[in-house]
């Protein structure tokens, strides 16, 4: 099941690209990576957008949590009102969940396609679809500069590039939490720490796994960097539009001073005192709008 659904299609895709691209396995991996990223692009974009948005409204989320800690129903209502759905956290992880079967499948596919042992080559034959003529493709070229693609890079170059490219990608994908009190916002603290742990972990993988897989990591990271730059532009534009339309998406009701104080304190810590001022000036407008909406209902 695993082989016929994941590994064998990957093996055949890699061989197809290898044949198409003049028997260059690096190019085959690169094009394969682009195809995989294109397939998962809608999910990735959604995840990133959701992550950036959640991070942006984190102070409001915390304020609501503080205020309605004893009233989960109301808390959900307020979450809905600011456009935050906790369930999105789970769906947002879907692209990551999809990445792991791809990684594991690709690891196995690279090992089998490179046919670096007689047994792996012997096992390759029945996996190849009849549309692909395997004979002229064997042996798959496993050399790339100083590297043997079926072994880890002995000079640490690929692990370092994997670490650096993933770090840049993480940096671009993670919204800035500058100014946020990390004690108040453990999620932000965790996200910050992920900026280092993820690249370190994948750098470590590259020390252990075939260089071909590291090439996949690097290609995926480079695409991720461009994707991150694009997402930043979009979110910056959206932020600017929201600011132009007037104010924050959520303020605490004036009748609850305690909650209001918490929200204000939280907003201040997130945005600095200047931001807090602009928020308080816009808060009355938003409250008025809400009251009007309630009256209509």
């Amino acid at each position, binding site marked *: 099941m695993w082989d016929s659904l994941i590994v064998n299609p990957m093996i055949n895709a890699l061989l197809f690209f290898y044949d198409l691209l003049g028997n260059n396995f690096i190019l085959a991996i690169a094009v394969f990576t682009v195809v995989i990223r294109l397939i998962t692009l809608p999910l990735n974009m959604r995840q990133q957008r959701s992550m950036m948005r959640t991070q942006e409204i984190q102070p409001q989320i915390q304020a609501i949590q503080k205020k309605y800690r004893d009233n989960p129903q109301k808390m959900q209502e307020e979450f809905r009102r600011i456009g935050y759905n*906790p369930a999105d956290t789970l769906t947002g992880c879907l692209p990551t969940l999809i990445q792991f079967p791809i990684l594991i499948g690709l690891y196995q596919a690279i090992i089998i396609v490179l046919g670096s042992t007689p047994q792996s*080559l012997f096992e390759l034959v029945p996996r190849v679809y009849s549309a692909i003529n395997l004979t002229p493709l064997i*042996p798959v070229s496993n050399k790339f500069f100083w590297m043997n693609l079926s072994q880890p890079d002995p000079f640490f170059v690929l692990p370092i590039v994997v670490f650096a490219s993933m770090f840049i990608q993480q940096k671009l994908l993670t919204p800035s939490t500058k100014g946020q009190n990390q004690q108040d916002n*453990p999620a932000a603290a*965790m996200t910050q720490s992920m900026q280092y742990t993820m690249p370190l972990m994948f750098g470590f993988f590259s020390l252990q796994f075939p260089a071909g897989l590291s090439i996949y990591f690097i290609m995926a990271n480079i695409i991720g960097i461009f994707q991150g730059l694009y997402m930043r532009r979009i979110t910056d534009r959206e932020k600017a539009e929201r600011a132009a339309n007037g104010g924050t998406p959520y303020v605490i009701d004036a009748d609850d001073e305690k909650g209001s104080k918490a929200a204000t304190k939280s907003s201040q810590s997130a945005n600095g005192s200047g931001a807090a001022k602009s928020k308080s000036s816009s808060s009355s407008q938003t409250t008025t709008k809400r009251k009007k909406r309630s009256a209509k209902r």
Partner: protein
Amino acid sequence: MQQLRRPLRRPALWLLIIAVGVMFLTACSGRIANTNWAGLSTDGSLVYLAFGPRVLAYDPATQTRQWIYPAEADTVQFYSAPSAEEGQVVFGDYGRAGGFLSPRVTVSIYALGNANTNTPKELWINSSAATDRIVAPPLQVGDQVYVGTADNHILALNAKDGSVTWDYEAGHAIWGKPSFRDGILYINSMDWSVYALHADTGELLWKTRLGGALAGQAVLGDDLLYVSSFDGNVHALEIASGEVKWSAPASGWVWGAPAFADGVIYYSDIEGNIHAADAESGAQRWTQSTGNRIQTAPVVVGDTLYIASQNGGATPSGALTAYSTADGTQKWSQPTSAPLLATPVVVGEKTIVVGLQNADALLIGFDLATGQELWRYSLPESDN
């Protein structure tokens, strides 16, 4: 508490995913796919088996194990069929990982004293000549050892101390054992080429490129060199020039080396067919289908051809089958509980031995004439 639960859900989920990913990535296939089928060889009396973590010598006459190496199994794997000549056994390994944080792999070539001691003496170990797996069985000729490596090199080592005499780089990995006659080495490479090298200097005498990868050993006939190829043919080359004289077709990749006997060439393809062709002209004599996949070489003794095969069903198994060399009719067949992927060897007058890699048996001896099982050897519990 509830206040922390929701913001933490996402990072916690991330960590969970990563942990599962690490577990899968590290557990599913190990560090490098360092597995292969067992390497089996003989010097005519003893049988040698490189079966993964260890190499052993077995005496079928007394049905006793002569030695096993290393004494304690390590992370390093051995699959190249050992070469035993003049009191020493030479073989290579698949490489040793450099450590937790080091990607460097060290590949070694070993020479052991071939005495009847439980733990053989290490005569020399060369850990610098090769950088990738030793798949090919080495060849010992006089004071030289010739080893093909998966990093595309053909190495000539001094048999006394393991130092490198010369080194020739081919276009791709060498998986087949070199052949030798009159001071010349004939080597097949996965780069589709046959190389003829001067055995003393490594100088290239000729090189012939064929239509597919060459995984097996080149076999010397009277005047021709026979080469099995993934292009679905056995090619006959002029020994002196490397010029292709004829090509005999098969039904798929021809992996194992052909067998030459009494003016006939016998060869098998991975689709499970056995073929016999005239050694001079390449004219087909007969073809027989076995129904199994074959990547081993045929073994011919007298008027019988023996072939080891694998049945790739839901429960992989194998078979050793005997055919008449005259017309390919089956004489007997013995099923085995594990696939037979190593070419069998003949020891003494009446025994053919197969090598396996399972707990039931590592070696099984069959009667050449009847196919009756004579003995089997499995690793004692204490050595597991």
